[in-house]
């Protein structure tokens, strides 16, 4: 803006002063103003520094220096005595080395576990392709559908010479990725329509339906929805008809996430100046063209941070399915160390699970920040 004004006035831009003096920029100056400005602030800085170093050293000592990486194999399975001796002093990463297959794939037949492994890679590939704005075209929907089919074939098997694996044997990371990916991929469009419906002025019935849906679903805990889906819902079905438990949990998650996301999207719709819709109306755009070309691109951009916040929350909330007996990543990890040989090594397992969850969530967060920056650059307001 300023640039344009100066150019319009035909004046030369003012020359910048030579470099700012070193005592107001640079890391030393930064530390002086932010960490050591007064004796009080210096004292707090030193105390906190001490605590951070102590905790950091403690973790390194436990996790790396005194850690046990492998254990010898005895006649009755692994000999964990060296790990037991190190309890409280060093981590037993051997437990993870021994049990990671169960953590990642649950009860999926051991010899067939290459199939869920490929599924995990397919999911990661799908995320990477979908994240790239260059691929935001119609073909992307096709890629999704094809990938879904391939994932289904790999997981269930039963054709192409793959042995059939029943759904109650699935477990681990693929379950978490399936629940989170389908949950959010379907909840998001649902939420957009619910948010639009809730703002509708011309269709009061639709509006009431959307309000009722959001308030009803938001008012109950996800756990109770999952219980309903797993225990109550089958009671209403005709005898003999059985819907897959995973599918029921999936639907519960979609409905729940949809209600939350709808409110986020509605916030974006509300933040948009009224003039945008009026300008689109005045140009003769129909409701749907106005919504998809003018309103949503702007409203969704505004709510990327809370949207991703909700996405990350739901990625982790999928772990709640463990209470209805679905073996997601968390449940598989916990079950893996229920093995009598490896009991007592929960910390190592939880640290590992936390790292896996963190990698996915941090990637989402990092991506959203990048996307925001990219869209901002295109707009520069």
């Amino acid at each position, binding site marked *: 803006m300023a640039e344009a004004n100066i150019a319009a006035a035909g004046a030369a831009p003012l020359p910048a002063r030579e470099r700012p003096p070193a005592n107001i920029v640079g890391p030393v100056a930064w530390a002086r103003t932010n960490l050591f400005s007064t004796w009080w602030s210096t004292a707090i800085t030193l105390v906190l520094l001490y605590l951070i170093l102590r905790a950091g050293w403690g973790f390194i000592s436990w996790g790396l220096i005194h850690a046990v990486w492998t254990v010898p194999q005895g006649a009755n399975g692994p000999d964990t005595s060296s790990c037991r001796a190190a309890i409280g002093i060093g981590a037993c990463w051997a437990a993870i080395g021994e049990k990671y297959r169960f953590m990642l794939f649950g009860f999926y037949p051991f010899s067939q576990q290459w199939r869920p492994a490929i599924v995990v890679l397919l999911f990661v590939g799908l995320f990477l392709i979908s994240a790239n704005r260059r691929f935001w075209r119609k073909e992307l929907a096709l890629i999704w559908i094809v990938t879904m089919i391939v994932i289904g074939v790999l997981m269930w098997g039963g054709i192409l010479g793959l042995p059939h694996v029943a759904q109650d044997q699935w477990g681990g990371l693929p379950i978490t990725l399936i629940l989170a990916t389908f949950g959010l991929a379907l909840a998001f469009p649902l939420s957009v329509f619910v948010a639009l419906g809730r703002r509708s002025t011309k269709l009061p019935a639709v509006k009431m339906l959307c309000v009722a849906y959001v308030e009803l679903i938001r008012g109950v805990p996800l756990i109770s929805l999952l219980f309903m889906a797993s225990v109550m819902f089958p009671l209403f079905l005709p005898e003999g008809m059985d819907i897959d438990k995973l599918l029921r949990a999936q639907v519960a998650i979609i409905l729940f996430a949809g209600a939350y996301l709808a409110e986020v999207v509605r916030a974006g719709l509300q933040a948009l100046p009224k003039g945008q819709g009026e300008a689109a109306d005045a*140009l003769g755009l129909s409701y749907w063209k106005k919504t998809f070309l003018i309103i949503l691109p702007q409203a969704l951009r505004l709510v990327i941070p809370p949207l991703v916040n909700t996405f990350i929350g739901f990625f982790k909330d999928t772990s709640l399915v463990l209470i209805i007996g679905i073996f997601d990543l968390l449940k598989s990890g916990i079950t893996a160390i229920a093995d009598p040989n490896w009991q007592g090594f929960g910390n190592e397992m939880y640290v590992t699970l936390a790292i896996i969850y963190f990698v996915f969530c941090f990637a989402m967060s990092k991506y959203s920040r990048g996307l925001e920056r990219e869209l901002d650059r*295109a707009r520069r307001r």
Partner: protein
Amino acid sequence: MSTAMDMAQGATHAPDASAPPAIVLDKVNKWYGSMHVLRDVSMTVAEKERVVVCGPSGSGKSTMIRCINRLETHQEGRIVVDGTELTDDLRSLDTIRREVGMVFQSFNLFPHLTILENCTLAPIWVRKMPKAEAEELAMYYLGRVKIPEQAKKYPGQLSGGQQQRVAIARALCMKPKIMLFDEPTSALDPEMIKEVLDTMVTLAESGMTMVCVTHEMGFARQVADRVVFMDRGEVVESGPPTRMFEDPQTDRLKLFLSQILRGH
């Protein structure tokens, strides 16, 4: 000033009284809740006529102009635009909005689209024009408002005056028969008002039917065939600008003019 007036009067595009009127408002009434914002507003705009609507704030002039392309709905009376009556029927609404362009006080450019995309959006999606043709058309009108070099930029990178000129070009790209201006210069810094008014004068000289809500009395004198003065929701007085400004008949217009002149 006198030369400019001569030019406007000498223009060949005099309002065509013989053709069917472009806009007819017949005893239009509107309420916001219990507030009566338009009271029996009747007005006829002939084809190629340039009407300036003025009046104090809250007089209903913006509401009236927004009723013409149904951004607001009226509750009583009839509005006929280009031979089509405004009703709840969506098809007639589509027809009217294609024929009526509008320029807003706050520009309302689409910030996520480039200047060129702002101008080609409606021709492509509403008029189903091929993209290349729409871009050519957009560049023509951007040239007419004198900013073709900004086509690849985003609205946020332009000054207010430039944005408003783009808004005019965007409306013109739909090749409307009628242009509505709702206080197009009120949100602008003083040094940018002139560039927008100049664009509007050029447009007026090309024979466009225009209804313009504005406080720019110089503009009204220069291009308007008729000035309509509104106050408290009703049309108080209307007539040619010279007569209105030099010989106001009603006390309300006299008061308004004295306030406007004091303000300038």
